[in-house]
């Protein structure tokens, strides 16, 4: 099917910067993020609140409220469906966020599942009508009489029992787990090539979380879509992701395949996160090895490396002087830390330009 390796990427994000201009100053919520999402692959993005993981994916779908938010730099290249002549790339960052082009992409080529399904379903319409609306909007040639049958099929596919009755239910009539399934049904109703899942299981109980994760992975295999999966839960990421990006204060600090990241974490922040959580599979420690300090306020980010004020390996005179670049330390493993690379962010490009 694939004509060349170059088309393996579905989405390429290059140096994305999304800033918020607020009274208190500029918040650099996303500050130079680059990654690729390959077809059929799951990219996990992990980080704490305020690290920019949600703003990154909202930027992809152009859902960042403007003002105050703006994509100030970077490209979001979506390689569209092959049209015989190879693929064509659209830069989503250049589209009008209210325009027809991005609206045709949202929900059809890229769709999204949110943490709290109650907020993404309108309360006034039945689940079925909302799914039917999506289908009619994006799929040409589907009659409204067929759309209902399609909606029921979609509900059945995500494991909702009695789908032909649930289709007429209102969102509040369903339990949290069922609502999340219904939202996944809606997101998948137009067979997107990329699904963005923003903390889709955080509000759910563990046994329901396990069901939803398994459902998402099974559907991904069936449909062949790529997934960007955002979470703060290291256990969930280990389970679903092929590739993991760790974000801290608007930047990716480490990125690797899931095995490499968990077996050989290099950035002190990644190591800190993995060490700080209790591991149920291991002997109990008398105390957890917590990361010192807190995520700084977005207006008081330390100079140099943003993690330097909490870092156990802090090197005075180096880490507080400049921001390290995200550099490859092993094939496919990129780390932003002076312990592994002396390359300073921004300088590499200057040198290349000379």
């Amino acid at each position, binding site marked *: 099917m694939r004509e060349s390796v170059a088309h393996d990427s579905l989405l390429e994000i290059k140096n994305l910067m999304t800033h918020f201009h607020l009274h208190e100053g500029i918040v650099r919520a996303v500050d130079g993020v680059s990654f690729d999402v390959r077809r059929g692959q799951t990219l996990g993005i992990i980080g*704490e*609140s305020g690290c920019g993981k949600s703003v990154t994916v909202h930027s992809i779908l152009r859902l960042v409220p403007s003002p105050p938010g703006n994509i100030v730099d970077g490209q979001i290249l979506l390689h569209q469906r092959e049209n015989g002549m190879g693929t064509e790339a659209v830069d989503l960052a250049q589209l009008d966020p209210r325009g027809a082009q991005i609206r045709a992409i949202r929900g059809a080529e890229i769709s999204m599942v949110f943490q709290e399904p109650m907020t993404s379903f309108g309360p006034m319409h039945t689940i079925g009508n909302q799914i039917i609306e999506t289908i009619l909007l994006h799929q040409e040639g589907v009659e409204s009489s067929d759309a209902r049958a399609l909606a029921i099929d979609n509900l059945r596919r995500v494991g909702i029992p009695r789908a032909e009755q649930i289709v007429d239910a209102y969102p509040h009539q369903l*339990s*949290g*787990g*069922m609502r999340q399934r219904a939202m996944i049904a809606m997101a998948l109703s137009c067979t997107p090539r990329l699904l963005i899942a923003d903390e889709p299981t955080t509000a759910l*109980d*563990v*046994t*329901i*979380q*396990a*069901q939803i*994760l*398994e459902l998402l992975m099974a559907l991904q295999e069936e449909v062949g879509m790529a997934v960007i999966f955002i979470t*703060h*839960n*290291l*256990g*969930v*990421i*280990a*389970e679903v992701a092929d590739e993991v990006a760790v974000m801290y204060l608007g930047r990716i600090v480490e990125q690797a395949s*899931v*095995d490499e990241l*968990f077996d050989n974490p290099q950035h002190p922040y990644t190591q*800190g*996160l*993995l*060490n*700080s*959580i*209790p*591991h*149920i*599979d*291991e*002997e*109990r*420690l008398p*105390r*957890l*090895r*917590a*990361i010192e300090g*807190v*995520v700084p306020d977005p207006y008081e980010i330390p100079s140099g490396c943003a993690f330097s004020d909490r870092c156990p390996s802090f090197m005075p005179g180096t880490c507080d002087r400049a921001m390290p670049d995200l550099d490859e330390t092993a094939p496919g493993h990129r780390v932003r830390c002076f312990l592994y690379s002396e390359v300073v962010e921004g300088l590499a490009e200057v040198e290349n330009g000379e």
Partner: protein
Amino acid sequence: MANDSELLLEVSDLRMYFPIQKGLLRRTTGYVKAVDGVSLSIKKGETLGLVGESGCGKTTTGRCIVRVYQPTSGEIVFHEEGEIVDINRLTRQELKSFRRNMQMIFQDPFSSLNPRMTVLELVGEPLLAHGIARGQELEDRVAEMVRAVGLRVEHLPRYPHSFSGGQRQRIGIARALVQRPKIVVCDEPVSALDVSVQSQVVNLLQDLQSDLDLTYLFVAHDMSVVRQVSNRIAVMYVGKLVEVAESEELLRSPKHPYSETLLSAVPRPNPHHHMQRLNLEGEPADPANAPPGCVFHPRCRYMEEICQTEVPTLIELTPGHHVACHFADQLELQGIDYSRTPQA
């Protein structure tokens, strides 16, 4: 940790039914049996973890114990220096002075603190309300408590909005502990916090427990966190306790099918972990309309005929290990085997 086996709190047959009212006349048409016959005991200085999924009644149990709710029935007996007090029988006046013995730490540090009060007022209020301290003494005690939870004295005149989630939770902890309670009900105290802050607060709670001789009832849904802090764990499902045991015993050899599933559902931060996950079909039963027999039987993989009709009682299977399952002594359940994964 718990060295002596002195009992601090004994709860027997606790029930909390919330009426369901319908229609213009608010007729009671049924009851949500949030807590339905829970018996447990907490030893002095120990942490009892109470785990279960949302709606299982774990929070309600915690709230009944500190008498935020007036339980429908049951005894909550508090042992205090030789004296025995049934919290459920206290009058309002008696309860008011008794309250300082039992405090609560809440989940959401953003909604549990009055935004118009400074840290000094928030932490000092309980002392003032109980007439324990005032003036300079109050300020000294507040300052001491605030330092104990890892905040600084400079924070005293500030308002909650200027603090991060983790710091707010520290304020909530200071407020609960400033009266030197004997027992603290921690209701999901870290689940709203960031990953890196969760471990700080867990460590803080453990340090304070040994410094101040506290006894905790630790209510949470995260099995890994509960195991980290608890001496014993009680597993709750739809208003009932299904299993109580020493933490490591419960992890290694769960005896109730629900505990087994809960353990297997915990997402492991290890991509090489490919344990056969035991998926639970369906969702927890409705506590307003619980199934007959064992409440877990509609989801149980080992269900037999007797489970549909007879309610299993919580029996002591081996010393200290209580299970409510008809087949507890026959089932070979899968626990956590941490001999394979050495600590890094």
